[in-house]
Structures are given as structure tokens and as C-alpha cells.
């Protein structure tokens, strides 16, 4: 039977008022552009205006835009790698270590004469293998993801030391063809920026336009109910850890190319900024859901702030200060706006 065919209750009026009718485009746009949705965008705009007034010669230029994009692309990639597991409620804090490992492996292979495409493939395959181990530990042994990946992170660190003895791998060959992966570009915008676009878009599509993406969110919100709905949540969680490791592996290759060396600790500085970006991003665009555009926006905001301060020759503490203030401001704006909207609606 199709419930659509029987009009059981047509005579009753709707009990709940329709808060926003679908046709009301203006209202829906207004909602989409509200602080509550995109508080961070307003913070970004505010910052751009401020810096443009403060340092009018150097800040509002195309060069600044390029500088920000080029220099924060890898942070953005590192953050994007975290989105898929996080949206399924899985913390993967081994990604910075995977980044280091994959960079070191690529460099090692290239220095030992392995052709570039093969070297990159090996590195990403190794990352995938790490992802598999992560998944087995988290899903198979049912260990809480945060601490499980902390543990595997430690294992990866051991592996890195084993391979490199903690000595960065440097070689002339690393500054040649290999470095083009990160350092060449189109019109002074380097390739990693395009990788961010591609990866971000792919994640966005996955989350918005595929059933897997939706099931991932559902798993993250309520694993039990999602399993009751017939979704294979454990399989999904397994998959997310493969994704994050693979993406982290790729990011590691790009990072190594941009450094022109295989550095054993290259990934670790990205841990906290990446998590900050993802969490800040989750408050933007799709309130409460980890998402790619929000994450990229968050990275841009921090990048703009720090770069602007650099151009203004601000003292070195100003950068950390601004990062903290931006985070709090963007989150508070988003939160406050959301609360007042609710209250307003309640009164209406």
C-alpha cells in the first residue's frame, strides 16, 4: 500500500505552524546569510577591512591572497582529512603521524631511485595500510577511537624513527621533479591550493549528495538508531579510517614536496590547527555537522589573520592572540545568534 494514496486525516488542520515555507526564498536566503550560519564569514570580512585600513599598501593586494592560499593549503588538506571520520563520530588523531610517515617514505623511495609515481603510490599505499590497522583497532578491537589512534600514532612514530633514525631525508633529487607536486602552480597559485579545492569538493559531494555521506552523519549522531535503521555502521566507521589515512598520506606527500625533504616530524605541527579548523568549520554552513567548506573557511580565517599581522610586522605574540580571539569570536557569534533566533521565534 502506498500511504500517499489514503487521505486519512485531510480534514485536520496542521498542528505545527510551518515556520518557513519552501517558497519563501528571501527568508531562506536571509537565514543562510545570518550570523548563526556563517558567523565566521563576517569575522573574515571584518578582518579584511581592518587590515586594509591598517596596512593599505601591502594587505589589499592579489599577492596577499596568493600568499595566504599558498601557505595554508597544506593546513587545509590536513584538516580535510579529519572530516570524514569525525562526521561518523570517529576521532583520528594519527593523521599528523601518517603525514610524516608518508612524506618520509616518498622521500626515501625517491632518494633510492624509485620513479616518482611509484614512490607516491608506495607512500599512499602505506598510509592506507596504516588506516587499515587503525580501523582494525577501532572497529575490530572496539577501542575508543581517540585513544586507539593516539596509540597507533605512537606506533607510526616508532616506524618513522626506525626508517629515518629521526634524520630528515634531504637530497638534490627531492628539489627537482618531486617538488613540483607542491611548488609549481598556475599563475603563482601553487598546486596544493587546487588539491584543496578538489578534495574539498569531493568531500562536500560525498557528504551532501551521496547516501554514504548521509549515513556517515547519522552514524556520528546516533550509532544505535542508525544501526536499527539497517545501516552497517561498523563498516562505515571502518571505511572512514581508511579515508582519513589515505588523505593524510596524500597530504604528507604534498608536504614533503613543499619542504623538499622527508622530515620525520613534519606532520605534528598540523595536529592542533587542523582540529581547530574542523571544529570551527562544523559551526559554519551546516550547523553542527563537520563539513568541507566550513573547514576551508576556518583555515582561511586563521591564515588571513596571521598573514595580516605578519605584513603589519606585529610582534610575535600577536599571531597566537589573534588565533585565539578569532576562534572564540566566530564561535560566540555563531552561538549567540543562534540562541537569539530561537528565542525570537519562540516569542513569535
Amino acid at each position, binding site marked *: 500500500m502506498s500511504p500517499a494514496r489514503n487521505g486519512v486525516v485531510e480534514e485536520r488542520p496542521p498542528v505545527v505552524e510551518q515556520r518557513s515555507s519552501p517558497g519563501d526564498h528571501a527568508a531562506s536566503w536571509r537565514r543562510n546569510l545570518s550570523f548563526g550560519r556563517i558567523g565566521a564569514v563576517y569575522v573574515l570580512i571584518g578582518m579584511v577591512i581592518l587590515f586594509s585600513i591598517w596596512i593599505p599598501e601591502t594587505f589589499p593586494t592579489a599577492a596577499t591572497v596568493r600568499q595566504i592560499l*599558498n*601557505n595554508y593549503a597544506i593546513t587545509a588538506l590536513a584538516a580535510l582529512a579529519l572530516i570524514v571520520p569525525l562526521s561518523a563520530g570517529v576521532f583520528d588523531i594519527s593523521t599528523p603521524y601518517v603525514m610524516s610517515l608518508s612524506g618520509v617514505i616518498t622521500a626515501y623511495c625517491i632518494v633510492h631511485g624509485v620513479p616518482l609515481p611509484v614512490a607516491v603510490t608506495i607512500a599512499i599505499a602505506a598510509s592506507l595500510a596504516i588506516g587499515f590497522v587503525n580501523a582494525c583497532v577501532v572497529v575490530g578491537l572496539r577501542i575508543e577511537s581517540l585513544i586507539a589512534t593516539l596509540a597507533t600514532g605512537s606506533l607510526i612514530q616508532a616506524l618513522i624513527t626506525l626508517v629515518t633514525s629521526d634524520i630528515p631525508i634531504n637530497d638534490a633529487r627531492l628539489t627537482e621533479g618531486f617538488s613540483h607536486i607542491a611548488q609549481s602552480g598556475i599563475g603563482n597559485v601553487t598546486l596544493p591550493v587546487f588539491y584543496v579545492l578538489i578534495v574539498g569538493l569531493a568531500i562536500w559531494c560525498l557528504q551532501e549528495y551521496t547516501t554514504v555521506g548521509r549515513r556517515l552523519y547519522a552514524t556520528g549522531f546516533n550509532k544505535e538508531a542508525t544501526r536499527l535503521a539497517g545501516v552497517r555502521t561498523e563498516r562505515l566507521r571502518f571505511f572512514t579510517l581508511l579515508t582519513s589515512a589515505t588523505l593524510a598520506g596524500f597530504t604528507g606527500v604534498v608536504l614533503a614536496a613543499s619542504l623538499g625533504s622527508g622530515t620525520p*616530524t613534519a606532520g605534528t*605541527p598540523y595536529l592542533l590547527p587542523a582540529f581547530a579548523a574542523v571544529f570551527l568549520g562544523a559551526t559554519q554552513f551546516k550547523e553542527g555537522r563537520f563539513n568541507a567548506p566550513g573547514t576551508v573557511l576556518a583555515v582561511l580565517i586563521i591564515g588571513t589573520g596571521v598573514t595580516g599581522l605578519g605584513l603589519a610586522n606585529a*610582534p*610575535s605574540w600577536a*599571531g597566537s592572540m589573534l588565533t585565539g580571539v578569532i576562534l572564540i569570536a566566530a564561535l560566540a557569534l555563531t552561538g549567540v545568534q543562534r540562541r537569539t533566533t530561537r528565542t525570537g521565534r519562540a516569542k513569535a
Partner: protein
Amino acid sequence: GSDSSSTDGGSSTAGASDATIAEAQTLLDKARTRPTQIPTQEPVGKPIPAGKTLSFISCGNEDCTNQAKVVKQATDILGWKLIVHNTDGTPPTLKSAFDQVVREQPDGLIYNATDRSLINSELLELERLRIPAAACCILQKPGRGITFVSEGPGDEIAKGKVMAAWFVVDSAGKGSTVYVDIPDFKILAPLGDGYIDESKRLCPDCSAERLEIPFTSLGKDAPNRIVSYLRAHPDVKYVALAIDQIGTGLPAALKSAGLGDVKLIGESPTATSYQYIRSGLQSVTAVYDMYGDMFAQVDAVARALVDAPQVESSPNVWLVDKDNILDDEGVFPMVADNNEQYAKVWGK
């Protein structure tokens, strides 16, 4: 310097011969004397124009912060303007700072400990713009955008030899020693080679090993790792530190492990390790001449600007112990009238 109070200089049978101990003693006596002349004596010979702009890229740690202050003294002598670009030492901020230098096009650049592969394109661009760049503490040779390098590998080996001499003399050629290395800092490797090779040369029967600890253990479990090593090797009573930072907290750890008789030989003192030396917790340290180092780089930029030829020079070495330590707090020039001597070289 006087005859070392810490050596008994007695006759020895096993280990080193009296001859080699005497050789070491000679080397040591020289090194314990505070240098009085800057390495570069040759005047520039042409008038150095005032009003130039020099950029300095700071890596955000203690050393870099102090270096900026020293460079400021040099530029003040020359009547130049100094722009300090603060970074936190991570690749994105470093790269961003170099980008900015390229955009601002100062008259010269000084930076340190940044691998060329990260900033290859910026260095080539600087070369194209004919902006001289001087660097310290890097493994690369001058060329392709790098005008001058101070504190190269050869200088490190020389320092290691002096430290070895102290060990051989103090132990009267009968001791065992360990060199604690941080492989992450590649510039420290030659120092260890110098120390270990020289120890073995002067004292063929002495044991000299290398203990590698990761950079991440600094300020955390580095003392514990060293204590473990020493407990497993009870005969080792001399610990050479690749940098004095490793030794932070080490005396306390040694004391509580009942290893109070172990002697520490350091390098690149920190304020903490000076303090240790004053209170007898550390035996000696090989001073890093920050003034000499920074002034040499400014000197190189100045010579490049007036098309004077660069001069090769080796930095001074000075070994400091409880008896010849100065009362100065913080950073002081190794050559007392360093600034005046350079002013003379520069014709100011």
C-alpha cells in the same frame, strides 16, 4: 686561562698516552682563553651606505629572538633599518615570511636554520632581484641565492674536538663517554663526529658512544633516557650534549638516580646551563658566539652591497667552566669589544 683546576694531569698508563694528553691539554688551554679578536679582520674597504633596509626572519624560539636583538645592534652601527619577520618556525609561517621578503624587496636578508628546499623558489627570486641573503646553521654551501653561510659543518667539527679534549684531559685518558645526539637537527651531526672521532684519536682505549634521542623528548623525558643509558652503562661518567637544551633538568635526574658523579660537557649554552655551570652541576660548555655569528652575516650582506669580496672565516671557539665563566646574564659577545671591532672593519 690558568692550568685547569679540574684536571689532575697525573701520569696514566692505560688509555691515552701522556703525549696525547698533553696535546689535548694544549688544545684545551687555548680554548679556555676568551678570544679577543673577531674572525674577520679585513676591512670592507669601501664606504657602506647608510639607510639600507635589512630583513631578518626569526624562527620564534629563544635563539632567534636573541639573534634579532643582536642583528639590531649591527644595523644600528651601520645606520640601517631592521625589519624582523616573526614566525613560529613551522613551514607555513616560514614560507609566508620569505614570500613577504620577496614582495617587500629589502636590501638584504638574514635567516637561519631553514632548509633550502622549503624556500628554493624564494631564494632564486632573491638572487634575480640581486638581494644578498646570509644564513647560519644550514648544511648548504653558498650559491644560488645564498650569499654567505656562517657556522657551517667544519666549524661544528672544530667545536666537537675541543669538547673531546676536555673529556680526555679530565678523565686523564681513562674514561668512557657518551655523546647525546638529536638526529632531527642535522647540523649537530658533524659536532658529534668531531667529538667522538677526536676522543678515540686522543684516547684509543676510551669508549665513546652515541645516544640518539628524539627532538620531542626535549624538556620532557630526555633526562630519563640519559639516566637509563647511564644506569645500563655504569662506567660512563662523561656525557657530552649536542646542545645544552638537552641537559635541562638532567642534573636533578642524575642526582635522584644516584649518578651525581657524572660530568656534563655541553655546547650552545642556555641561560639554564650557565646557571648549572655556576652551581657546579655542569662541568663545561662550548659557547655559541651569537654576536660573532650575526655580525658576520651582516658583514657579508654589507660586503655584497658594495661589491666587496666575501671573506672566509671560522668562528671563535671558547670553552667555559666554573672558573672562567662571566657574570653576564643572557647573551654577551664572545669577543668583548666585538661591536667596536666590527665598526672598525666597516669603517664606521
